[in-house]
């Protein structure tokens, strides 16, 4: 058995501001190249898990561990985690007025490899090639990051960043929310292509609905309720959830 890329063990986290407990002992393992989905009702803590993995300052880890490539991921700052290959596709990407996507991405790609100065022409070429892969218009790169973007444009911008930063682990937080079916197909198609291109990339999808999983097929599905993973299985679990809903899990005994 090879060592997992990511191992989350008994992870507990609270809202830093008021101490409300959100994660109550999460256990999860991902190997390189695997596609996992975490499903769960609103308020189950699945988005919090994504943010905690990336080091969002609004949450405080109170117990458990996260091991990434054998190292303690929780000891790293958010930017260090990113440079180590952990990528979070945001549920609500943030607007950065006045900063073009091209400029932003150039600095982000440069940050990944600080020892070597990124050639601006090489970067332009790479950016154009990646945009073509995702069927994006080149003019998109000149727009300010997420400023005035539609929901679909924001999500596509996340996938473009994923395509350029080439992480080892992509955490996708509710990538399907706010997308119509056409936009969803484009985004899912992009992720699938990137995974074909780099099959070693692990993907952790966080979603409320089964819909996304029709387009990006996970090998493993986990159900999260009240801050814990209460059941894990294969793709059939997602279909069962679609049919029966989360009702079944409402009475699941809370973590004691």
């Amino acid at each position: 058995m090879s060592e997992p890329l990511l191992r989350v063990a008994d992870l507990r986290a609270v809202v830093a501001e008021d101490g409300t407990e959100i994660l109550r002992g999460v256990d999860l393992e991902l190997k390189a190249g695997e596609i996992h989905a975490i499903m769960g009702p609103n308020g189950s803590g699945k988005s919090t898990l994504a943010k905690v993995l990336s080091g969002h300052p609004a949450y405080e880890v109170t117990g458990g561990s996260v091991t990434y490539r054998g190292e303690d991921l929780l000891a790293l700052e958010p930017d260090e985690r990113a440079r180590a290959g952990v990528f979070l596709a945001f549920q609500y990407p943030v607007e950065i007025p006045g900063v073009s996507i091209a400029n932003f991405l150039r600095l982000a790609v440069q940050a990944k490899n600080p020892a070597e100065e990124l050639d601006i022409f090489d970067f332009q070429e790479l950016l154009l090639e990646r945009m073509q892969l995702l069927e994006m218009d080149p003019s998109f790169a000149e727009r300010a990051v997420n400023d005035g973007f539609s929901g679909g444009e924001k999500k596509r911008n996340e996938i473009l960043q994923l395509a350029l930063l080439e992480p080892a682990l992509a955490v996708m937080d509710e990538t399907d929310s706010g997308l119509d079916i056409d936009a969803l197909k484009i985004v899912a198609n992009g992720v699938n292509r990137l995974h074909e291109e780099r099959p070693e990339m692990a993907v952790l999808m966080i979603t409320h609905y089964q819909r996304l999983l029709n387009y990006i097929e996970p090998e493993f599905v986990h159900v999260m309720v009240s801050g814990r993973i209460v059941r894990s299985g294969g793709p059939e679990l997602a279909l069962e959830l679609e049919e029966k809903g989360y009702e079944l899990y409402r009475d699941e005994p809370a973590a004691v």
Partner: protein
Amino acid sequence: MPYNETVANLGLEEYKYGFVTKDKPVFKAQRGLSEEVVRQISAHKDEPEWMLKFRLKALGIYNAKPMPKWGGDLSGLEETMDQIYFYLKPQERMERSWEDVPPEIKETFERLGIPEAERRVLAGVGAQYESEMVYHSLKKEWEEKGIIFESIENGLKLYPDLFREHFGTVVPPADNKFAALNSAVWSGGSFVYIPKGVKVETPLQAYFRVNSEQLGQFERTLIIADEGSQAHYIEGCTAPVYSTDSFHSGVIEIIVKPGARFRYTTIQNWSNNMYNLVTQRALVHEHAHMEWLDGNLGSKLTMKYPSCYLVGEGAHGQILSIAYAGDGQHQDTGGKVVHVAPNTTSQILSKSISKGTGRASYRGLLKVYDGAKNAKSNVECDALLLHDTSRTDTFPYIEIEEHSANVGHEASVSKIGEEQLFYLMSRGLSEDEAAAMIVRGFIEPIARELPLEYAVELNRLIELEMEGSVG
């Protein structure tokens, strides 16, 4: 990083223009302001009688006017004014070639990169050192087109009629206390005339340097852009860092004749011991365009509101203002537009950044007179606060007498948000890089209007100031 450590790391001591040059001035007036000093200045300049009278009258107005009670804290200024020198003549005459400028003064401007910029990108350069222009030169191709680019003193001597017709007409001495002061003791500054239809493609630049401790600099600039002409004038300012305060109070008068387009850019980076109180105003005639691009980065206190008087039908005025207030600095800046004629349009866009204990105030006046039919104006002021101790205020005065006027006003205050920082950091940028990127994006609408070299310099300054600045 803990907040206190952050504040200690703000890097304001990295002001790179704070060096002092040892020189030998040829004349230094006594400290403080008096009729005698005013007469001495006039005598040194060998002025006609009317100018001496103008100065003395202005001195009377200055003495009669109270210190303004609004704007920044001027309580330390009166004491400063008793201590400073109002006139200091650095060399005997103004030179046309850098070779003839005394070596120590020339070296100062070399260190500021002025001769280099002149060779590469400018149509002409004026350099003021203490109270006088020590160098003024215009490239031959522009001289041949009849452009006048002179020190203000030479303007008065060589073009007495053109000078007298316009001098003091845009900013009369009684306009405000500091305009009166400048009118009494003015020295140095430029006289510019762009002939009808001439378009100057590269900028003219004036650079203002105060070297001595406790010196007041009172330059006066008069610019006439004749019908259909087009030009861009840039001024830059720096001074050494002293423990005592200095004082800079300029007056800029611009007449933009019908159909002309004029842009005046200021990149003020005075040291943090400078009171900077400046009156800048343009009269804009039929279908002419005036643009002020006002960058205030330095000084202890700046009070400056570039203004456009839209007196001709279809005139357009634009004021782009960017202010940066670091620890202990107060930038009280903004703009003023007065719509007098019909179908006039204007825009004010102000962006300010306050860091540490810095304070940035937007102060603006928009006035539309009865009869300025269909006047249109849009005012937008945005403030960005970097710390809980940073401060911003907005004082927008709007006076509309004309019913058909269409006026918009928007103001916003924001902080560098945790979510923005986290988003950028989650892509691998360090906290400092992320904060600098947010600030660069914030000022981008104005930075993009700057000549490339200035935009680069502005970004470099911001990056320097942003190091370790996020708590």
